[in-house]
């Protein structure tokens, strides 16, 4: 049963997506045509300055509520008059008033290339209020300032806010599937379903590295990254630190944990203390082993480098979020002869860790390692859930590849069908 859930959700996704792809497209935005052409915007000055008699005014104003908004916009469309043939025509002026009032407000001027529709409510000086009945008038406007106005039209609809954004359904579906899978595996994990996690090289090395430091009688250096506690990498690193502290307490190896963020520092201290308690040796916890160094990035690095040169730790852990300092840390560490284990989700720093450290946890491996070491069922369940989502993504990409091949051979357009299912509109 467990195995079938992703497949079922995937089928659900495809089916719903298919239904969407068939559904009508949302109304195009009035400003969707952004092409700018020199000829179009150039105004022939020599042309007649006044529209003249017998001109047909814009007509047939239709006002509809702009969808998926907070009731603060209306779509105004109309039919053009005869102005489009005149060279001195510059655009349509849109007038609006609240029903029952006299004065019209000029709420906008369309550009030549914007056509005969206008979204009213985007101008912060002329806000559209939800539920208010407006009246509109559209005037073809000429270079001379002359205008040919349409009749006053009572807006057919008032602006109203929607309770659901129909353009966000794919996101909603994505969220629900993700949430569903994570929760499903949470509960599966809590019920005690055995969950397999593949071994990660870096994790196995952690125990080995602690052992080596113990044999050599040298300390272990653990840098929990340079970021704050709201960073996922820091959170993962703190969990791993707890495990390392427990092991270290069992072996009686000294541990050094320099910190850059004051909050992370207090949390790391508590975590290490907890690790010693779990190992049954709270008395062995040295208060000076976890310390706040400085908040300056480079001063922090200089400080840690100093520790490496003086204390010559046998093992260096760099787990968490790192920036430019990664290179300086790892270079110094490799020269001091320590075993180095790094792990970060900072993609730009990973190459330097890979070329200088013995083991490197790449991106998501860091999160997985934290779940692996934490051995908390919910954390394992979360990794499983993420894997299931990755499975869905992989299935869709594979399907895309196959469809693309089909298109190539059979000359069909099946890939576009799949693309339409997953593609979201550019604008919410």
């Amino acid at each position: 049963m467990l195995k079938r859930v992703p497949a079922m959700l995937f089928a659900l996704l495809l089916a719903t997506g298919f239904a969407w792809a068939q559904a009508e497209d949302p109304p195009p935005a009035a400003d969707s045509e952004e092409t700018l052409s020199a000829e179009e915007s150039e105004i022939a000055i020599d042309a007649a300055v006044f529209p003249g008699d017998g001109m047909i005014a814009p007509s047939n104003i239709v006002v509809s509520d702009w969808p998926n908004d907070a009731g603060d916009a209306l779509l105004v469309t109309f039919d053009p008059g005869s102005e489009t043939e005149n060279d001195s025509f510059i655009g349509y002026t849109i007038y609006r008033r609240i029903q029952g009032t006299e004065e019209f407000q000029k709420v906008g001027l369309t550009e030549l290339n914007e056509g005969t529709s206008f979204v009213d409510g985007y101008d912060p000086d002329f806000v559209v209020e939800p539920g208010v009945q407006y009246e509109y008038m559209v005037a073809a406007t000429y270079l001379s300032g002359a205008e040919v106005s349409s009749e006053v039209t009572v807006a057919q609809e008032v602006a109203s806010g929607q309770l659901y954004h129909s353009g966000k359904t794919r996101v909603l579906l994505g969220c629900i599937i993700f949430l569903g899978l994570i929760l499903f595996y949470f509960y599966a994990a809590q019920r005690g379903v055995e969950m397999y996690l593949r071994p990660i090289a870096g994790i196995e090395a952690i125990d080995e590295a602690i052992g080596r430091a113990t044999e050599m009688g040298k300390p272990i250096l653990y840098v929990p990254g340079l970021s704050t506690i709201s960073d996922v990498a820091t959170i993962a690193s703190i969990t791993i630190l707890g495990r390392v502290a427990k092991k270290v307490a069992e072996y009686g190896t000294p541990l050094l944990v320099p910190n850059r963020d004051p909050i992370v520092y207090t949390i790391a201290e508590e975590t290490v203390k907890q690790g010693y308690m779990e190992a049954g040796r709270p008395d062995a916890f040295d208060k000076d082993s976890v310390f706040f160094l400085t908040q300056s990035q480079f001063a922090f690095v200089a400080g840690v480098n100093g520790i490496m040169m003086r204390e010559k730790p046998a093992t260096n852990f760099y787990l968490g979020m790192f920036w430019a300092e990664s290179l300086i840390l790892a270079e110094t560490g490799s020269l001091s002869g320590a075993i180095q284990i790094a792990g970060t989700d900072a993609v730009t720093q990973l190459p330097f860790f890979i070329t200088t450290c013995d083991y490197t946890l790449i991106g998501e491996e860091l999160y997985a390692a934290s779940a692996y070491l934490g051995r908390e069922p919910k954390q394992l369940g979360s990794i499983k859930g993420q894997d299931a989502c990755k499975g869905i993504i992989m299935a869709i990409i594979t399907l895309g590849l196959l469809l693309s091949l089909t298109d190539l051979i059979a000359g069909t357009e099946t890939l576009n069908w799949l693309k339409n299912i997953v593609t979201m509109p550019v604008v919410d």
Partner: protein
Amino acid sequence: MSETIGIWVAAIFTIGIYSFLYKENPLYRLSEHLVVGISTGFGIAVTFTQVLKPKLIEPIAAGEHGAWLLLIPAILGLLYITRFFPSVAWLSRYPMAFLMGAGMGIGFPLSMKASVLRQLEASLVPIYEAGMPWDVVVGNVVMVLGTLAALIYFFFSKPHKGPFFGTGSKIGIWVIMVGFGATFGFTVMGRISLLIGRIQFLLGDWLHIIK
């Protein structure tokens, strides 16, 4: 005049920091400390004049309608200070919880859209279209297969064995390494650029040897 003094001060600090390459020294230590003090001091000054003054103090002082509601975030914010008093430090969790909760909630659908769905959408490329040069075709295949293989590498619930997971993850890690190589190469350029900037300052603005 003040500009000349300024350039000299800047030049002295620049050289002071470079002297660290030879040996750690007092001028370097001074720079290191100054930068912490100035940047934090700057942060406070700007936060005060740009946030607290216009968004909190002025509306309340002017007695704007509903401004008293702003006292809620103000009090919440003040609770951060309790962190320095161990007996009531737990109160500092309240502002953190406010920012964390709302931040995570807002972030969730946005990340779903930007880092998952948009990327999925972009992975669905036709590998061949009429008139595509061969390197683009090969590139598209490499890109799509590369994404797939690298995703297999990050798949944790199956052992990396067998033709699919075994080979897939092996290809995956190779593709990842090529990607890291690219990052590496670019980073070298970035680091050298920073040095170039300082040399242009020292030789140009300060010594006027180069233009």
